């Protein structure tokens, strides 16, 4: 197991309440409820593979420190719910990561292009077809990561077994379905 390599840069001069409030609004979480016990970092399955631990994300969010927007952790949270299940203060760090990644994208500070591609391609796919087409998603992500060969041993047999069909299903009522995306345009930052 590796350490979380501390990659926070910059200095603390003051608290950026503007960013702090925006994170609170987007995530629906009360940042000051967190007293930084570290239980989220302790249980987080992915934290040991990231740059900063979840409780550091929480601390930087409390400070409204912009460096958090450049972290990899906020993109690679897998939403497994371990942190919120065990948090003594009923805070959900996963929701904070989610909010931060949205702000990070807006500010052009994305650290994990592949994670961004995963969620964007995923949503694009369902927007266009109503359902996910796994093969398309995998190919698009391979394009994003440039790593074409690592999963061929898994993918080719699956493809041959017909478990990754070329043609996918499209829902009938796509017109109304698409409205669900438009209706929320304001919230889509």
């Amino acid at each position, binding site marked *: 197991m590796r350490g979380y390599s501390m990659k926070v840069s910059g200095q603390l001069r003051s608290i950026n309440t503007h960013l702090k409030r925006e994170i609170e609004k987007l995530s629906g979480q009360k940042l000051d409820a967190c007293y930084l016990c570290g239980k989220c970092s302790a249980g987080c*399955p*992915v934290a040991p*593979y990231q740059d900063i631990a979840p409780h550091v994300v929480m601390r930087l969010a409390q400070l409204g420190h912009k460096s958090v927007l450049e972290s990899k952790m906020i993109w*690679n949270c*897998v*939403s*497994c*719910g*371990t942190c*919120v*299940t065990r948090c003594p203060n009923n805070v*959900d760090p996963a929701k904070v990561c*989610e909010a931060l*990644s*949205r702000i990070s994208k807006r500010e052009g500070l994305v650290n*994990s292009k*592949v*994670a961004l591609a*995963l*969620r*964007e391609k*995923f*949503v694009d796919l*369902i927007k266009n077809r*109503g*359902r*996910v*087409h*796994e*093969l398309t998603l*995998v190919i698009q*992500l391979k394009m994003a*990561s440039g*790593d074409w060969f*690592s*999963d061929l*041993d*898994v993918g080719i047999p*699956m493809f041959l077994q017909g*478990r*990754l*069909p070329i043609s*996918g*299903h499209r*829902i*009938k*009522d796509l017109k*109304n*379905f698409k*409205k*669900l*995306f438009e*209706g*929320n345009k304001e*919230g*889509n*930052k």
Partner: protein
Amino acid sequence: MKTYAYYPGCSLEASSREYDTSVRAVFNKIGIELKEVPDWSCCGSSQAHKIDGDMAAAIAGRNLALASSIGDIIAPCASCSMSLKEAQIELEHDGPIRRVLVEAGYEYLPGSVSVLSAVEAAYQAVESGLFEGKISSPLLGLKVASYYGCLLVRPPKIAQFDDPENPVSMDRIMEMAGAKPVEWSHKVDCCGNAYILVDRNMTLNLVSNILNAAVKADADVIAAACPLCMQNLAERQAQMQQRYGLKRKIPVVYFTQLIGAAMGLDNRMLGLKDDLLKLIDIRRQEEIAAREAGRKAKEAEERAKEARRKAAAEKEKAAKEAKEKESTEKESSGTKEAGEAG
């Protein structure tokens, strides 16, 4: 016959067909009708949620609206059932999401449906005795590690099912199917879900930890309940053996495939591999033999006990008789003496 709305989800259409067919077969056999939600769409999964929570709730909510004419929804995929449950909580109160749905022509009646994962539905069926008499070939002796993963029981406020740290429902289901659930440490540890496509190294590390825990608990097979978990756990085991310290390969199947096997359903609907079917048979024979041996040993012990009891009783009887004899002798000699004295 009770009818449920059935929400297969995108994976069950493609990569996880055997989950789809086995769920349908098992529920059909116990008299539960699954009516597919008409023209269902993707639940949004955690990815849509990360882009926009409201949009995610709206597209999941569409399925709830479509299902409300049928009834409670069974969504086998853990990720789908979680997304639908989360959306339902949003939709229970009159908010912007319900309005967006109405504008797009979908109406959800609050409280009209409740969302169940396949494990929840199967557990309810076990509790209400629907499986009674249906287990024709129990999975005797088969050591099953039930893998719940994250979203089946977490976060507890949304899942509202079983214990988030030590769930037992799937273990109970496996017991019902005649199998032996094993106690193991990684029941609810995360497999990394779609992040296999983002960070392979991380995900394979997580998965090999889970598999090794099951191996350590000496499980024959892992029972899963989510297509994403299945993809991560079942594939690439050879790679993990080489580079991630996986101790041995271990088969991973959907829990409904195992129930189906216990119910003697046609394997064309279950899609279990021959190796596993063979293993199930072997374990069953072993268990039957072991039970037979146990029964015989017990009988032998009973017989030995009975024999000891008899021997002891006879000994006691003999001792008693000897004593009686002695005392009568004493008595007679006593009278004799007295007579002599007199």
